[in-house]
């Protein structure tokens, strides 16, 4: 089997290489962005041929894929916003289907079935297609392929941007990465002001936890940077322990926490949906409970 790979970053591309090897793809060609030293990194990870582009531009990558996609079984990417957009456009233009957010694959009756989380995180769909098909692998689900021996054939392509970008701003990344943290504390609308989040930060420092939030806190109120937002369209987390504080438990949010080993929910509303997704349900006011929990931890440390 042969695959053409592209991704918005090398890290994501190397994760997809691992996935492609798992499902038995022998020959991988990849689009990469940058100079020749970049191509060498792909070669060391077993990529046979690299199509090198200077800029990462959605329109340009769609055009390139449409012109070079011949004889491949898969168009493979990571299902971040760039990956899902380019995969959607290129596959539709060429005339094949796309399966996004893939978390695993299995063989059944000679077909490869791709699993993806669907229906707001409540179900797993097993999907298949005759080749070719576009596959978007869920980011940070697979280890990056390690470098070893190997060299890739390089073809440099020149393409021009179609959409003029007036301004580009990097989003600030702050604090420990949520998706790698062992303990995560999530803050919701139960907090009455931005200053009150200190209760969560203090507890986080005691526990060595990372702090995140539900969508409204990050996206609407801007009390936390956007990369702190936990949920289906934000960050998916998989910590040993997740403590949801003052979070009602909208499906958007719950879909991003289901891989947590243990979930604790603190909420004043006994009917908050979060309690249905929690192991330990604490129907208390966070303004009383968080200080009590912090005090209890300190007592144990001291004693």
């Amino acid at each position: 089997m042969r695959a053409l790979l592209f991704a918005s970053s090398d890290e994501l591309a190397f994760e997809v290489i691992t996935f492609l090897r798992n499902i038995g793809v022998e020959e991988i060609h990849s689009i990469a962005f940058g100079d020749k030293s970049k191509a060498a990194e792909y070669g060391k990870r077993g990529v046979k041929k690299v199509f090198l582009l200077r800029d990462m531009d959605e329109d340009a990558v769609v055009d390139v894929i449409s012109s070079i996609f011949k004889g491949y079984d898969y168009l493979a990417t990571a299902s971040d916003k760039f990956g899902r957009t380019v995969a959607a456009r290129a596959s539709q233009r060429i005339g094949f289907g796309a399966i996004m957010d893939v978390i695993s694959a299995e063989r059944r009756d000679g077909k490869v079935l791709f699993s993806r989380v669907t229906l707001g995180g409540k179900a797993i769909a097993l999907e298949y297609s005759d080749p070719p098909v576009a596959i978007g692998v869920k980011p940070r689900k697979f280890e990056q392929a390690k470098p070893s021996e190997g060299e890739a054939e390089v073809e440099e392509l020149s393409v021009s941007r179609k959409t003029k970008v007036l301004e580009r701003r990097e989003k600030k990344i702050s604090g420990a990465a949520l998706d790698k943290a062992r303990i995560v504390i999530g803050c919701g609308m139960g907090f009455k002001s931005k200053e009150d989040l200190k209760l969560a930060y203090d507890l986080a420092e005691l526990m060595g936890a990372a702090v995140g939030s539900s969508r409204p806190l990050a996206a609407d109120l801007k009390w936390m940077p956007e990369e702190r937002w936990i949920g289906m369209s934000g960050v998916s987390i998989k910590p040993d322990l997740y403590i949801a504080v003052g979070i009602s438990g909208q499906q958007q949010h719950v879909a991003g926490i289901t891989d947590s080993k243990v979930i604790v929910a603190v909420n004043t509303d006994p009917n908050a949906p979060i309690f249905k997704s929690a192991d330990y349900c604490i129907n208390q006011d966070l303004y009383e409970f968080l200080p009590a929990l912090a005090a209890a931890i300190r007592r144990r440390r001291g004693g």
Partner: protein
Amino acid sequence: MDTTELLVDERGVKVEEAITKVSDIDNNAMELAVQLKEKFGGKIGLFMALTWGPMQMRIKEVQKAAKKLLAMGGDEATLIVDEKLFSADSFLVAKALAAAIRKGSFDLVIAGEGSIDNFSSQIGPKVAEELSYKFIGFVSRVSLKDNNIILTRSMEGYEEDVMLDLPAVISVTQEVNKPRIPSLTQVLGASKLPMKTLSLSDLGITEEGRVRVAEIRPRRMERKMVKLEGSPSEVAEKLLDLLVKEGVL
């Protein structure tokens, strides 16, 4: 579809019992269309494809949802209803929507960034390809500068401003605006607006979808749901004991 009402139990996923609902983000898409119409004039057509059965129950629900959206300030609605679209993939749904949109010669198509049930973010870009329109996804802010429309796209790790150049398909996030709530008069008025229903053969589509679903299985989310009661410090102590026992502290 409203997945909050979706029932999942041991025997399987009961898609039939869920309530059809417009994804929240679709209200943001309609709000943006209405704001642009108020500013620049024009006509708003609403296009919806029904992708879940059973037909008899769903068709009433989708009509109701369409009326609610039209009441915000739309002009007409087109519903695509065909059993061949039930559980169809985004390849076919996009073909159907694009074929219907093409009949109306619209130069700006606004979609939500993803549907709440699937969130694959595939329909917008695929419709753009079918129409050979530009695609600008994940728009979180729309502003005006010298009568040009500037779109801010919110991507992972960065955001960027681009100028809207027609014809185009754009997808919006929930942050783009606060959808208005239509008045009772508007809701009543929406019932009089034209609404037509088309099948795939009306649209001249004979093609089939590409991706098939072999199985949908409930996702195991068995949580203990243990209530911890007592005073805040009693509960804190109990919780710490349990977390130590679980080996997560």
